[in-house]
């Protein structure tokens, strides 16, 4: 760990990874994130914005301790 740290700049230069590896990581990251974006969305967020727009929620965000 210490040795790695001493040669950090050097290591970062040397560590320029294989472009194919980076591409694979990029794709996996996008796929992972897409699965999160596409996950079923609870209704409560849309409901919240509708209530905010209708003036049915106090403008002051709820206190943290109210949420536990």
């Amino acid at each position, binding site marked *: 760990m210490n040795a790695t740290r001493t040669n950090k700049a050097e290591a*970062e230069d040397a*560590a320029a*990874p*294989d472009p*194919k*590896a*980076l*591409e*694979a*990581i*990029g*794709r*996996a*990251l*996008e*796929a*992972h*994130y897409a*699965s*999160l*974006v*596409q*996950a079923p*969305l*609870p209704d*409560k*967020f*849309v409901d*919240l*914005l509708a209530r*905010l*727009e209708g*003036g049915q*929620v106090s*403008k*002051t*965000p*709820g206190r*943290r301790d109210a*949420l536990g």
Partner: protein
Amino acid sequence: MPSASFKDELLAEIRNLRAFAISLSGSVSLADDLVQESLLRAWSNSEKFQPGTSLRAWLFTILRNIYYSNYRKRSREVQDSDGLYARRLTVPGDQESHLDLEDFRKAMTKLPAEQREVLTLIGASGLSYEEAAVVCQVGIGTIKSRLSRARAKLVELLELNDAASDSPVERKVQRVG
């Protein structure tokens, strides 16, 4: 009172905001609390948003601030208790090189949080280096260095840079159908 169009713009960002929150906290239930609180805060501070700048980056900044001030301690306790990460998701098999997503997720959780968030912001959420720097409240140089360290670490964790092999990536990815 924020305009109706501001509300529509918020609506359009909810899914991305939630995805970022899940990446950040590692928990869907915490992420939902974070999104809820962020939307409230965004609504009541809408006049602080500068039109023409990225609403996504602005919302991410709000959510990240809430997370680091109030939630970070809680997140390790309940991390992934709801199992969304554990669910196996199929990746469209359009190209030859796909990593096993489950391996990838495990490797992501091993990154330091500051590297994981930068990787997510730039590699997945579509933020620019400049926007990511604003969200994370560091300089662009720090963003770039975290990003390259995150990528190098993933390459290492996923054993994609095996010097003994000519084509480590092909070998690694072919087992995914």
